[in-house]
C-alpha cells in the first residue's frame, strides 16, 4: 500500500535544526549592533505592603520586551536603554505596580516598589486558551496558573508530583511504584469513554506528546505482560526546575481555540527565560532523598510477603505461623535487603538530583541555560531511573519590533525495571502468591531467579522550536511558532540464556519514534471604537502533524550464554506499526472591552483532521464568554474588596483514531501464509466527539484582600461521543466500531478559598482549601448497547464508566478495616448467611443491563484539598498540601487473581482460622455455616463457587501530598545571594477508608489513558523524602 502521507522524521528534524541554526547565527550577528545603544542599570527591591520581599515578581520596562524576575530577596537588576522609562512590576497576589524612572547612560537608578495585595491578579497575563497574551480580567473562564518562581520554590523531581493537589479540578493520580511510572491526569474528570482523557500539553507554545510512552513489553510474539507493565509519562521528561509557570485550562470552554483534541483540557508549560540583569544569575541545587514503601497489608504481613519472614500461614490449630518453606536462611536473602535488617525485596531507594542553571543576557540577547542529572533507585531490587536534561532558551531582539525566542530542551531518560505487574515471570506476582506462585516456591532464592532479566527503557527526547514575535504597530502584533517534539524510545527486555523461565533465552527490542511538528500563527489587532469601548480582534491557524512509528524485533532460543542480539536467535519475529495524523485549523476571536470592566469574547475554531471520515469536512467549534470586574464599578463598596464575575460557553473536540473511518481487515498469518481477519467496519462520516462546556463563576477578594474566593460551576456535554458500538457476533465478529453515537455529561463545582490569616514581616500563616465535585452521566448511548470500557461499564443513566459487579448484600463482605492491624472484620460478620447478590431494581438497587450491581463511578466525585503555609522568623517556612478524594471505586485485581488461584491471602485469614478450627482443613460443609458470604465466594477451599466480580472497593483516601520545611542558610554560604535548605516529605501520610490491601493509586498496564484505577500485581507508589540545598548567586 502506498503511504501517501508519511514523511521522514529525520528530515523534519534536520530541516528544523538547520533553520534554527541559521536564525540563531543571524541573530547573534545582529545582536552586538543592537547592543551598542547606551544603557543604564535599574536596580531595586520589590516588597509587599507591610511585608517582606517578594520573590519571583515580574519586572518589565513598559513599551519594551525588557524584563526579569526578582530573586528570593526581592531584588532585581536590569540593563535598560537610557531615558525616561516606566518600570512595571507584577507579582502573584498583588496589584500591578509602576514607577517612573530616568535611566542615565552608564549610571544606576534605584527603583524600589511596594505592592499592595490583590488576590485576583486581574492584570496578570495568561496565554493559554487565547490568541495572544490576555489579562485575567478579560477572561470569562477559569484558568489556573502555577507560578513556580513565586509559589513552588523547590519543585519536586517530576512534573507529576509538582501538579499533585496543586489546583482545584486537576486530579493527578500516581500509578505504581515501578521506576518511570507516569501519572494519570484528569481535568474535571473524564471527558471521553473511548478516546484519551489526558490533557494535551504545550511547552513554550509547541504541541508535545501527551500520551504515555509505549509500555516495554514483547509484542504478539510473547505474552504482552512479560515486562514491568508500567507506562512512562512524557511530562516527566521535563525538568521541573526549568519551568517558570504552568497554565492549566480544564475544559472546552477555555480550550476552544485549540479545537480538536482539546476537550480534555490543556496544560501549557512555560520554561524560564534569560533576563537583562546586570549580571548572570546562577542557580545550583543538590537534592538527596529516599523512596520509601508504606505498608499496604495487615500488620503481620505489611508488605504482602515482600519481607519473607512476615509471610503468612496458619497451623492446624488456627494459629498464625511463619510457613516453614518461607523461612529465610543466610545466603537466601536478596542482596539488597531493606535497611540491612531483614531479607526483603523492598528497599529504600536512594534518590539524588543535581540542577544547575544560569540566566542572563544583555540588550538584545538573553539566555537561560540549564542542566540536571538525576539518579533514582526504585523501591524494588532492579528499579532505577537516570535522567539527564539540558535546556537552552534564547531570546533575540532582532529589532524593536521583532523578537525571536528559540527554546530547546533535550532529555535522556533511562529506566531499569524489575519484572512486575500481571506477569507470570515477574517478581511481584510470584512474591505475592508465595508458595502457590509460578515457581511453586516462596523460597527467596527461587524467586530471586526471576530477577535474572534485564528490562531497560531509554528515551531520548528533543523539544525544540522558536517563536517570532512581531509588533509592527502598537495596536497590532503577531507571532509565528514552529516546533518539533521528537522522542526516540527503545524498549529492550532480555531473559538471557539460562533464564529459569526460558532456558534458551528471549530478547525483544522495540524502537519507537514519536514526532510532532507544530506550526502556529496568531495575530492580534487592538482597536478603539469610542469612549471606553475597545476591542481586540485575533485570528490565526495551527498545523499539527503527529507521527508515531514502531519497529520491533523479537528473538528466542540463543546458541549460548552471553550478550545476545535478536539476530543471534533461532527464531526471529518482527513487527511494525506506523500512524500519522494531521490536524489543522484556523480561528478568529474578538474581545469587546468596555471601560476595562466589561469584556465580551466571541470566536470560533475550524478544524480538519486526517482521521475524520472522508465525507465529513471541517468541524466548527464556537465560543463565547464574558467577564465583569464589578469591583471596579464606582458604586462598589471598598469593604467588599475585589470581585469579578464570569461566564463562558465553548466547544472543543477529540478526534477518532486513524483507522476508525475505514472498513479494514487485519493482516495476519495462517500456516505461514498471509491471511486477513475482520477488524473494523468503518464509518465514512466519523468525526470528533464534541464537548460543549458552560462555566459560570466569580472571583472575589475579601477582608481587605486577605481572603480570595474562586468559584466555578461547570457543565460539560459531550455529543457525538465516540463509543465502541459492539457488533453482533453472528454477523462477523467485527471489532466494536468507534462511532459518534453517545451523549455524556459532566457537571460540578470548583471552589477555592485562600486566606492570609497572619501577615507580619517575619511571621505569617496562609491557609487554603479547595472543593471539587464531579457528577457524570451517560445521557444517551444512541445506537450502542451498554458495553465494557476501561475496566468499567458504560450504560445510560449511570455515571460515565462505572464499577459494575456483584454486591453481596449481607454484612460482612468487606468489613475489613485497614486500620485494624489484625485484619479481622471490625463488625462481626454475618456468618453462615445465605449468599445474596441479587440486584433488584424494584428495591432501588442500581442495576446494570446484565443484572449486575452498579457501585459507582471510576473517577472521584469529590476532591477536597487543603494547604497550609507557616512563615516563621528568619525566613523559615513550613508548608503542607493534601487532598481527600472520594466517590470512586477501584477493582482489586491482584486479590482476585490470587484468590481465584486459591492463593493463601490475608483477607481470608479469618476464613482459614474458622475452617481449620476443628482440625479439618477445607471442610466444605463448614463453608456455608461458618463463613461470611464474601468468604464463601473468595476464600480457597472445598465447595467454593468463585466470582471475580466481588472485588470492588471504595478508593476513598486522604493523602498529605507534600510537607516541606524550608530554612534559609545564607549565613553558611556568605558569597551566595540566597541559600535555602529544604526538607520535603511527599505522600508519606495517608488514610484509606475501605481498602484492606494496597493503595488506591495503582493501575494495570497501559494506565495513563485508562478511566479506571485497578490494582494489578504492582507495589503501591512510594513516599519520598528529600533534602535539598539550593544556592543562587
Amino acid at each position, binding site marked *: *500500500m502506498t*503511504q501517501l502521507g*508519511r514523511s521522514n522524521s529525520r528530515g523534519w528534524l534536520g530541516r528544523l535544526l538547520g533553520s534554527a541554526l541559521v536564525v540563531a547565527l543571524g541573530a547573534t550577528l545582529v545582536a552586538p549592533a543592537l547592543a551598542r545603544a547606551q544603557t543604564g542599570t535599574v536596580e531595586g527591591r520589590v516588597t509587599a505592603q507591610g511585608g517582606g520581599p517578594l520573590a519571583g515578581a515580574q519586572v518589565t520596562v513598559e513599551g519594551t520586551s525588557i524584563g526579569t524576575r526578582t530573586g528570593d530577596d526581592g531584588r532585581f537588576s536590569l540593563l535598560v536603554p537610557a531615558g525616561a522609562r516606566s518600570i512595571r512590576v507584577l507579582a502573584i497576589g498583588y496589584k500591578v505596580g509602576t514607577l517612573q524612572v530616568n535611566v542615565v547612560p552608564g549610571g544606576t537608578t534605584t527603583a524600589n516598589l511596594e505592592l499592595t495585595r490583590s488576590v485576583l491578579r486581574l492584570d496578570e497575563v495568561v496565554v493559554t486558551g487565547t490568541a495572544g497574551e490576555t489579562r485575567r480580567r478579560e477572561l470569562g473562564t477559569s484558568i489556573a496558573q502555577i507560578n513556580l518562581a513565586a509559589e513552588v520554590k523547590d519543585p519536586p523531581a517530576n512534573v507529576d508530583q509538582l501538579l499533585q493537589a496543586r489546583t482545584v479540578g486537576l486530579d493527578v493520580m500516581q500509578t505504581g511504584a515501578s521506576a518511570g511510572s507516569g501519572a494519570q491526569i484528569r481535568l474535571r474528570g473524564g471527558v471521553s469513554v473511548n478516546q484519551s482523557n489526558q490533557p494535551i500539553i504545550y511547552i513554550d507554545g509547541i504541541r508535545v506528546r501527551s500520551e504515555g510512552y509505549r509500555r516495554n513489553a514483547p509484542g504478539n510474539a510473547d*505474552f504482552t*505482560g512479560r515486562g514491568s507493565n508500567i507506562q512512562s509519562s512524557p511530562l516527566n521528561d521535563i525538568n521541573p526546575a526549568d519551568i517558570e509557570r504552568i497554565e492549566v485550562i480544564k475544559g472546552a470552554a477555555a480550550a476552544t481555540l485549540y479545537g480538536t483534541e482539546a476537550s480534555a483540557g490543556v496544560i501549557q508549560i512555560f520554561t524560564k527565560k534569560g533576563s537583562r540583569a546586570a549580571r548572570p544569575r546562577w542557580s545550583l541545587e543538590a537534592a538527596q532523598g529516599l523512596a520509601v514503601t508504606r505498608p499496604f497489608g495487615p500488620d503481620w504481613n505489611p508488605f504482602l510477603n515482600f519481607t519473607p519472614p512476615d509471610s503468612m500461614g496458619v497451623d492446624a490449630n488456627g494459629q498464625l505461623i511463619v510457613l516453614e518453606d518461607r523461612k529465610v536462611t543466610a545466603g537466601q536473602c536478596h542482596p539488597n535487603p531493606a535497611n540491612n535488617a531483614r531479607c526483603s525485596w523492598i528497599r529504600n531507594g536512594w534518590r539524588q538530583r543535581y540542577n544547575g542553571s544560569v540566566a542572563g543576557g544583555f540588550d538584545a540577547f538573553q539566555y537561560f541555560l540549564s542542566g540536571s542529572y538525576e539518579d533514582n533507585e526504585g523501591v524494588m531490587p532492579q528499579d532505577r531511573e537516570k535522567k539527564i536534561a539540558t535546556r537552552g532558551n534564547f531570546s533575540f531582539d532582532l529589532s524593536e519590533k521583532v523578537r525571536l525566542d528559540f527554546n530547546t530542551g533535550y532529555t535522556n531518560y533511562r529506566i531499569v525495571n524489575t519484572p512486575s505487574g500481571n506477569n507470570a*515471570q515477574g517478581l511481584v506476582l510470584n512474591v505475592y502468591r508465595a508458595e*502457590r506462585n*509460578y515457581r*511453586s516456591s516462596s523460597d527467596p532464592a527461587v524467586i530471586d531467579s526471576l530477577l535474572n532479566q534485564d528490562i531497560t527503557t531509554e528515551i531520548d527526547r528533543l523539544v525544540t522550536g522558536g517563536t517570532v514575535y512581531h509588533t509592527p504597530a502598537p495596536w497590532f502584533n503577531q507571532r509565528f511558532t514552529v516546533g518539533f517534539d521528537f522522542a526516540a524510545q527503545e524498549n529492550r527486555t532480555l531473559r538471557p540464556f539460562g533464564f529459569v523461565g526460558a532456558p*534458551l533465552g*528471549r530478547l525483544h527490542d522495540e524502537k519507537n519514534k514519536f514526532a510532532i511538528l507544530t506550526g502556529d500563527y496568531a495575530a492580534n489587532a487592538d482597536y478603539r471604537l469610542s469612549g471606553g469601548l475597545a476591542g481586540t480582534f485575533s485570528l490565526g491557524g495551527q498545523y499539527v502533524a503527529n507521527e508515531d512509528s514502531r519497529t520491533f524485533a523479537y528473538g*528466542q*532460543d540463543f546458541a549460548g550464554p552471553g550478550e545476545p542480539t535478536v539476530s543471534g536467535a533461532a527464531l526471529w519475529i518482527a513487527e511494525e*506499526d506506523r500512524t500519522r495524523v*494531521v490536524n*489543522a*485549523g*484556523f480561528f*478568529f476571536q474578538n474581545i469587546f472591552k468596555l471601560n476595562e470592566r466589561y469584556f465580551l469574547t466571541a470566536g470560533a475554531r*475550524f478544524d480538519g483532521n*486526517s482521521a475524520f471520515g472522508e465525507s465529513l469536512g*471541517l468541524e466548527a467549534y464556537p465560543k463565547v464568554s464574558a467577564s465583569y470586574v464589578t469591583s471596579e464599578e464606582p458604586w462598589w463598596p471598598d469593604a467588599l474588596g475585589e470581585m469579578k464575575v464570569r461566564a463562558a460557553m465553548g466547544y472543543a473536540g477529540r478526534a477518532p483514531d486513524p*483507522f476508525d473511518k*475505514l*472498513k479494514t*481487515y*487485519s*493482516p495476519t*498469518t*495462517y*500456516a*505461514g*501464509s*498471509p*491471511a*486477513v*481477519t*475482520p477488524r473494523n467496519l468503518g464509518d465514512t*462520516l*466519523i*468525526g470528533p466527539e464534541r464537548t460543549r462546556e458552560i462555566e459560570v463563576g466569580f472571583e472575589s477578594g475579601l477582608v481587605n484582600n486577605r481572603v480570595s474566593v474562586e468559584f466555578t460551576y461547570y457543565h460539560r456535554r459531550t455529543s*457525538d461521543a465516540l463509543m465502541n458500538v*459492539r457488533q*453482533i*457476533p*453472528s454477523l462477523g465478529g467485527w471489532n466494536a466500531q468507534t*462511532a*459518534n453515537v453517545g451523549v455524556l455529561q459532566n457537571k460540578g463545582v470548583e471552589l477555592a478559598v485562600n486566606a492570609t490569616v497572619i501577615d507580619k514581616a517575619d511571621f505569617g500563616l496562609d491557609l487554603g482549601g479547595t472543593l471539587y465535585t464531579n457528577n457524570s452521566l451517560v445521557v444517551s448511548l444512541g445506537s450502542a448497547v451498554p458495553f465494557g470500557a476501561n475496566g468499567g461499564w458504560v450504560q445510560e443513566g449511570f455515571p460515565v464508566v462505572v464499577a459494575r459487579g456483584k454486591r453481596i448484600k449481607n454484612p460482612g463482605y468487606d468489613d475489613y478495616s485497614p486500620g485494624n492491624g489484625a485484619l479481622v472484620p471490625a463488625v462481626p460478620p454475618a456468618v453462615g448467611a445465605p449468599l445474596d447478590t441479587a440486584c433488584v431494581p424494584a428495591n432501588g438497587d442500581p442495576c446494570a*443491563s*446484565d443484572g449486575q450491581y452498579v457501585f459507582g463511578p471510576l473517577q472521584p466525585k469529590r476532591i477536597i484539598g487543603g494547604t497550609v503555609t507557616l512563615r516563621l522568623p528568619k525566613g523559615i517556612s513550613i508548608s503542607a498540601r493534601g487532598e481527600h478524594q472520594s466517590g470512586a471505586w477501584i477493582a482489586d485485581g491482584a486479590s482476585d*487473581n490470587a484468590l*481465584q*488461584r*486459591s*492463593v493463601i491471602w490475608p483477607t481470608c485469614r479469618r476464613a482459614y482460622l474458622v475452617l481449620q478450627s476443628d482440625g479439618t482443613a*477445607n471442610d466444605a460443609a463448614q463453608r456455608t455455616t461458618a463463613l461470611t458470604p464474601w468468604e464463601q465466594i473468595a476464600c*480457597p477451599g*472445598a465447595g467454593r*463457587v*468463585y466470582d471475580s466480580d466481588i472485588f470492588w472497593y471504595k478508593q476513598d483516601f486522604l493523602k498529605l501530598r507534600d510537607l516541606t520545611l524550608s530554612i534559609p542558610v545564607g549565613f553558611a554560604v556568605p558569597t551566595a545571594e540566597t541559600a535555602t535548605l529544604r526538607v520535603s516529605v511527599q505522600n508519606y501520610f495517608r488514610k484509606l477508608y475501605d481498602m484492606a490491601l494496597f493503595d488506591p493509586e495503582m493501575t494495570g498496564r497501559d494506565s495513563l489513558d485508562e478511566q479506571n484505577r485497578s490494582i494489578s500485581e504492582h507495589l503501591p507508589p512510594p513516599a519520598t523524602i528529600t533534602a535539598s540545598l539550593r544556592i543562587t548567586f
Partner: protein
Amino acid sequence: MNSIYRKTRRPLLRGLPHALALGGTLAIGACNFDVVNPGPILNDSLDNLTGHVSVVNGIQRNLADALDQIAYWGGALSFELNPAGSTGSYGILPNVQEGILDDNDGNGDWSNAQQARWTAEDALRRFARVYDQATYDKTLFVVQAALTAGYANRLLGENMCQAVIDGGPAEAHTVFFTRAEGHFTEAKRVAANIIGDAALPAATRNTARRLDSAATAGRASVRASLASFNGNNLATWASAAADAATIANAFRYNASYAITDLGSYNFIQWASSTAARAAGSPYRAHTQWGTYFEQFGPTFDSRVPWSTTTLTGDAAVARFAGLRVPWYPQAKYTTQASPIALSSGWEMRLLQAEEALVRGDLPAATGFMNQRRANIGRPNLAPATIAEGWTELKRERQFELWLEARRLGDLRRWAAAGSPGTTFDGLWVDEANGLPGGVKDNVWTQRETMTSPRVRSVCWPIGRSERETNPNIP
C-alpha cells in the same frame, strides 16, 4: 460505506462569517489530510484476485482460533483434562474448572466460532460477487471457503447449545449441522469440477482431491450428528457411512497453528506440556491427574499420550479444596505449532463402526474399531453384546478424538439418541480421600461424573455479546 450511526451531520460552516471561513479553509486546504496509514487491509482491496489467498487463509485462521480454545475448555468441561491452576492467561476460569460455563465466560468462544462461520460464508459471498459463474465453479478458493464454512458450522453445532445465524433469532443447534452439510456438499461440487477438468494443472487437481476428501469426511461427521439428533435415523446414518467409507485410513485434515505469534499457538500445548515449559511457558494449567486416562498410565494408548512429572500445577485449584494438583501434562500436542485434527480416516472408521452398531451389526462395528487398534498396536476388542460394542465405541472415540473439540458433541448426540453403552468421563482418583496428595489406595474411584455432584455444561450458551447486541435474541 456511509455512516450507519449518524444520520445527519452539521452543515459545514454553520453560517459563520464566510469571508474568514473561506480564507481559513483555503489555508488549511493546503494541508494534506489525505493521510494513508499502513497496516490494515482495506476491505475493497480484497475483491482483487490477488487478495483471495489471504481471504481463504484468514477464514482458516479464524476457524483454527475458535477451535483452539473450544478444544481446550471443552476438554475441561468433559474431563479430557483437569485444571491444574492458572485461571487467567492460558488457564481455565474457576467456574469452568467446576464444569459451569455461562454466557459471559463462554462469550469469547461463541464470538470466535461465529466469526469463523461468518467469514467463511462471507468469503463465498465475496467470491460469488467477483467471479463469474464459470470461474466460481472451478476455483479452489471457493472449495476452501465452503470447506471451512462447513467445519465452522460443525464446530458450532457440536459445541453450541443453540444456533444463531447472521443476527437472526435463536434456533436449534442442529441448524449448524444442516448448514455444514450444505457447505460440504458445495465444496465437493466445485472440487469435482476442478478434478474433472484435465486442462487444469495437476497440482490444482490434487489439491482439489484432498479438499474433496476433507469435505466428504466433514459431511460424514455432520450427517452422523444429524442422524443422532434424529433418533439415530438409519437413512442419514447410511449416508454418513457412505461418505466415511470413501476416506482412506491415513487421511487427516487439520487446523494449523504456528510458533510465530502467541495468538496462533496451540493453546492446549502452551498451557501445559513439558515442551512448552522448556520453551519458556510459565503455565502448568492443566493435568491428566484425575482424568479417566491417568489410571492407565502415560503410554497406555498412543492416541492419549501424557507424561508424569514431580511438579504440581501452576497454582492451587479451588475445586480440589484449594490444593496443588500433580502435573501430568498432555503430550499429544508437542509444539506450539501442533495441528488439531478436523477430520481423519480413523475417525471415519469409527463412524462406520457406529453406523454398524445402529444397524445392530456388532461384528462389522468391531471390525472397524479393531482396524485402528491394530494400527497402533493395541489388542483387538471383542464386545459380546451391542451394549458392550457401544461402550467400546464410545471409549474408542474418546481416545481417538481426544482434545479435538469433539467430545461434548459426542456426549450430546449420544444422549439425544439414547445410545446404549457407558462413557467414562469424570474425575477418577486413587487417593483414598479423593484429594491430590492424599493416601493412594490403588483403587480407582470415579469421584465425579458429568452429572454428579453437579450437572456440568455440555455446550456453550449463546454468548452474552450476542444477547446484548442482537435484537432478535430476547
